[in-house]
């Protein structure tokens, strides 16, 4: 073929300012005048976004995916149903206050996540596999990692995405609680302080839950199994810890009983809130009194998040994941 046919679509992507001379290498013309023009790949010399932008886009995409935005309608149902369920109690509580005329919330800002343990666990159990299992299952990790993005970037982006989503949902619930309280003319100052404590609590909770859920999801490639494994893990741990606490109390080991709640993310966070902010514990759990208790709980929280991230980065060590 000695003529160059216009390839549809390249006109749109061509950089107009580039002179023809630099439109790619052409083979030297043969004596009879035959020549092959390079009209395929056009070299792009323009501005490229860097690593930070890549990570940011991945993060945004993760957050959107958790809430089902940009996905077919079916995948929007689960997250939003759970969010709806999560937001019902604040409404109910507001109504209760209206009806009973009390001057404080029936459940405090820091107690609220503990009471909705199950729903929150279900939400993160459904969201985490979506974040990581699909990429691993279909072997697209090499695609991701051939971009200007490191393994750790990918892990952090996914983690941050999930944590931010969790935080957003929980913070929304806390804020609804606040709004309800303010509408019911409860004392503003106390409510705002309580709300701030609640926000701090759910932030830590979001971090810990996201870490644990992502680790489990990264090792279970099938989405259904991932969801089941995460929820099983969270529920079983919660149940087991409860039983162990009861046993410890019965056998007269109150100190052990006060440290055991640290094994359950929800009570870990609750314990931190109780010691740091001086709020009431949820479910009447007893937490260790002195600074040692605070140290143990605090470092356990940090260590959990750190360990989860480390495991995740290790998991993606082999490109291709599976």
């Amino acid at each position, binding site marked *: 073929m000695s003529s160059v046919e216009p390839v549809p679509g390249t006109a749109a992507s061509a950089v107009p300012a580039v002179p023809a001379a630099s439109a790619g290498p052409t083979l030297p013309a043969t004596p009879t005048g035959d020549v092959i023009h390079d009209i395929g790949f056009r070299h792009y010399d323009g501005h490229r976004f860097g690593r930070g932008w890549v990570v940011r886009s991945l993060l945004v995409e993760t957050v959107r995916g958790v809430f089902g935005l940009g996905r077919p309608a*079916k995948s929007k*149902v*689960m997250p939003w149903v759970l969010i709806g*369920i999560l937001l019902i109690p604040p409404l109910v509580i507001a109504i209760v206050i209206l009806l009973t005329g009390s001057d404080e919330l029936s459940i405090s800002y820091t107690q609220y996540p503990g009471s909705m343990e*199950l*729903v929150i666990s*279900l939400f993160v*159990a*459904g969201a985490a596999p979506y974040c990581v299992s699909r990429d691993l299952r279909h072997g697209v990790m090499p695609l991701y990692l051939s971009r200007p993005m490191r393994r750790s970037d990918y892990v952090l982006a996914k983690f941050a995405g999930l944590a931010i989503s969790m935080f957003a949902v929980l913070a929304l619930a806390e804020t609804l609680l606040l709004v309800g309280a303010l509408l019911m003319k409860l004392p503003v100052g106390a409510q705002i302080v309580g709300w701030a404590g609640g926000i701090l609590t759910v932030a830590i909770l979001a971090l810990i839950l996201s870490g644990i859920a992502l680790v489990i999801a990264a090792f*279970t490639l*099938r989405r*259904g*199994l991932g*969801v*089941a*494994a995460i*929820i*099983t893990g969270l*529920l*079983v741990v919660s*149940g*087991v810890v*409860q*039983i*162990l606490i*009861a*046993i*410890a109390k*019965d*056998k007269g080991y109150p100190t052990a009983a006060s440290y055991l709640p640290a094994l359950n993310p929800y009570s870990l966070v609750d314990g931190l809130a109780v010691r740091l902010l001086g709020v009431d514990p949820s479910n009447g759990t007893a937490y260790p009194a002195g600074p040692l208790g605070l140290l143990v709980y605090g470092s356990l929280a940090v260590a959990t998040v750190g360990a989860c991230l480390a495991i995740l980065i290790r998991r993606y060590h082999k490109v291709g994941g599976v």
Partner: protein
Amino acid sequence: MNPVVMRLTMSGLLGRRRAILFVLLPLLLLLLAGLVRWASGGEPQSTVDLTSHFALGTLLPLMCLLIGTGVIGTEIDDGSIVHLLAKPVPRRTILWSKLIVAWGASLVFAVLPIIAAVEIAGDEGTRLGWAYGVTAALAALAYTAVFVALSVVTRNVVIIGLLYALLWETVLGGYVPGVRNVSIRQWALAAAENMLGDRAPVWGVTSDVSLSAALVLLAATTIGAIVLAVRRLQTLPLTTRD
């Protein structure tokens, strides 16, 4: 009812990663039972507390969910069920065979460990063991059938199954009295209440539903689930992409 299907299902159920959970969870339960015994010295009340909430309320539904989705859910999900369906075997038979394997597995991996846990944790004679054994067996039959049916009907079976078993039965059941009438666990507990006779209220093993109503509801749910599953399997659309 078809031994070949049953054997394939069994190898599928036990040969995958989820089989780890089938061993791990019962073991965990037995360990807890041992600790409970050490703590309470074999006091039946503690056994009731352990079993009614953790074993029956959390562990049993979870195990049945894992088993129920394991016998048919994964195959539908990745399309390998086409090899079973492209055979001159009635779909009803295929479903029955898988269900029987699921029932068997839930009995071995969930019900028996629960009975063992009850005995380890402390019993009065064998009353609790029998009562909880029957309860767990009835509940397992119903749960497994429901989760198998859900696996055939929807791809979101795990979330829906969990929402039901945990949110509906446990949480709402705690707040809204009416919910307890529509709960497999409550229906099964009616059997325990009946078998324990006068000891039931002492230990707090109660159910809102009468025994006859409970048995009818359990049967209706189980049969309904099976019928739904067979009908859906008969018209299961399987396109190979495109």
